């Protein structure tokens, strides 16, 4: 059962220097209001785990879409992602030595997060074999031979905080995602000490049929009503 909190309370839950997972893919499915408020806070020094760093422009010509705001305001010291090519500020800060970037194959990132949330010791994947991913000892435990097939043993990936976006969240904290927004939100809900979800629409318990709940309230600690209802 989740607790409903205000936007400022949500920001208070996020400590300086935290390792934070942000659901979303190129800004789609980022928790836009929480991220916007966080970008206006004095907090920073974050390790950000997100598929990407979003884009400089979002829908309707908005500037600094989603997590791009946190990069732009230099609140991120380390970014763990799969693709950063659509946000040129990442390369600028990386080249300036102010932002550390670790790149992980997208399927491996999803499974490493899922493994952490599912109590698994790691992920065996053929992805990355024979590539420089093998050299990334922070995330790759070892190379393993299973009956003649080579795999990388990827470590689980856990965070202090996960910040999710849900289209409908009921008053218990059950989440329903619209369109492609579920992307990494679904696995990230399982893999952080504190899970905060931003609702586009808060609905009554029962309005999301139990069969259609995508992230159970069992995973969700706090909900912020984004107020689009």
């Amino acid at each position: 059962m989740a607790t409903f909190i205000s936007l400022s309370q949500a920001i208070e839950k996020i400590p300086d220097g935290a390792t934070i997972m942000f659901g979303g893919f190129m800004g789609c499915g980022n928790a836009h209001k929480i991220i916007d408020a966080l970008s206006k806070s004095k907090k920073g020094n974050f390790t950000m785990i997100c598929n990407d760093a979003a884009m400089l422009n979002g829908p309707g010509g908005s500037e600094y879409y989603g997590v791009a705001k946190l990069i732009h305001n230099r609140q991120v010291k380390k970014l763990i992602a799969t693709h950063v090519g659509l946000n040129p500020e990442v390369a600028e800060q990386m080249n300036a030595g102010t932002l550390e970037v670790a790149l992980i194959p997208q399927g491996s990132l999803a499974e490493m997060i899922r493994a952490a949330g599912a109590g698994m010791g790691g992920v065996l994947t053929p992805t990355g074999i024979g590539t420089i991913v093998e050299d990334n000892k922070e995330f790759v435990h070892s190379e393993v031979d299973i009956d003649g097939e080579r795999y990388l043993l990827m470590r689980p990936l856990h965070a202090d905080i996960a910040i999710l976006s849900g289209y409908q969240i009921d008053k218990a904290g059950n989440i329903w995602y619209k369109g492609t927004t579920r992307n990494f939100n679904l696995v990230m809900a399982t893999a952080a000490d504190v899970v905060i979800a931003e609702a586009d629409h808060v609905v009554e318990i029962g309005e999301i049929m139990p069969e259609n709940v995508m992230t159970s309230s069992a995973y969700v600690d706090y909900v912020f009503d984004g107020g689009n209802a």
Partner: protein
Amino acid sequence: MDKKEIIAARVAKELKNGDLVNLGIGLPTMVPNFLPEGVRVTLQSENGIIGADTVTDENRDEWYVVDAGGRPSAVAPGGSFIDSSVSFSLIRGGHVDVTVLGALEVDQEGNLSNWIIPGKKVPGMGGAMDLVVGAKKVIVAMEHTVKGSPKILKKCTLPYTAVHCVTDIITEMCVFKVTKDGLLMTELHPDYTVSNVRAATDAEFIVSSQLQRMA
């Protein structure tokens, strides 16, 4: 047709009715425009669409539905949305029939480099490493050379996306199949000769005894 259209049109002939297909950004997205009559494929977008559709004024919903390049997308009737874990289970698990993508370099062993130029451009691999490891057929669709320099090499010089993963290379000049004996040229575009291709290719290749006209 310009070079890109020639390539996209030829790639389209590799797709079979009912295939589940993932298209990389750029040239590969042109492939559906050239599908032969009667061939319908399902497009997968690795951020979470099975059955991606063309965006129209009616279905555009860009805050909620995007493709793997972050552009507005849509889902076709009968399609579905999935999360990233399921999407890559689909990809790694061999459920995607064909992936079509560009390359910085590809070599005669079927090794592919398309995600990083160290010190110059570091966009990241995104889903490419998983796609080329998992898809049943991996088609590199690209112009044969870059500024006159060969992109089809004996050995890639840039960091790999994956090793021994490419099954087909389709350019404006020819079609290569990657076989255990190396590259096999199966089709040649009528605008070029085998010597033209040799001059534009660093890799060794064999010319098929049943060489066809590429069209």
